[in-house]
């Protein structure tokens, strides 16, 4: 079975990730889910809109997964990101790892989400009542 699942999808199903990461050699499975928060700087968020440069995003996500597998000897990795419009409480990203012991998958998940936010070409626009803002675009 394939060691990594790397996907960009319209609708994120968080229920499948446990089975995808389940592995006889793993004593721990760790999953991070990023979701839409209702307020940014005291302003009510209506929704987030994600877009991507897909061919490059998949490559960069695969690089992150490979680095994490090499570094922490993971058994399985899932990196799955949603695009399009997402409302409050909806999941937008799922990062998961399974490993022999818990330390490795905890640390690896943290590394993978932090690196994804720095390098993967995905952009999010916050939609407020009266304006929209591309996140992190300006200093």
């Amino acid at each position: 079975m394939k060691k990594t699942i790397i996907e960009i999808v319209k609708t994120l199903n968080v229920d499948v990730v446990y089975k995808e990461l389940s592995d006889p050699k793993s004593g721990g499975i760790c999953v991070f889910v990023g979701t839409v928060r209702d307020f940014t700087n005291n302003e009510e968020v209506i929704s987030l809109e994600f877009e991507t440069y897909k061919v490059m995003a998949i490559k960069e996500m695969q690089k992150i997964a490979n680095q994490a597998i090499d570094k922490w000897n993971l058994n399985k990795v899932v990196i799955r990101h949603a695009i399009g419009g997402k409302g409050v409480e909806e999941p937008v990203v799922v990062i998961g790892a399974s490993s022999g012991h818990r330390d490795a998958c905890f640390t690896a998940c943290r590394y993978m989400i932090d690196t994804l936010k720095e390098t993967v070409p995905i952009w999010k626009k916050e939609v407020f009542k009266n304006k929209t803002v591309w996140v992190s675009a300006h200093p």
Partner: protein
Amino acid sequence: MELLFFGIAKDIVGKSSIDLSKNSSLPKSVEDVKLFLTKKYPDFSKLSSLAIAVNSEYAADDVVLNDGDEIAIIPPVSGG
């Protein structure tokens, strides 16, 4: 040679791609692309950062460009 724009870069330019193949002088390097963009669209200078990908890999300023390259303009990313 095609330039692709994403996120706020698409808003600044007003479209998602520009075909440069009919231009008389093509940018020769990644740095040339950045100079071309910031001169034509000053709003690019206001961004927190501006990266360029050549054929879907991040490319440094001194990378030389070829006619068929796909060049993507990468404003600050904000996934997750």
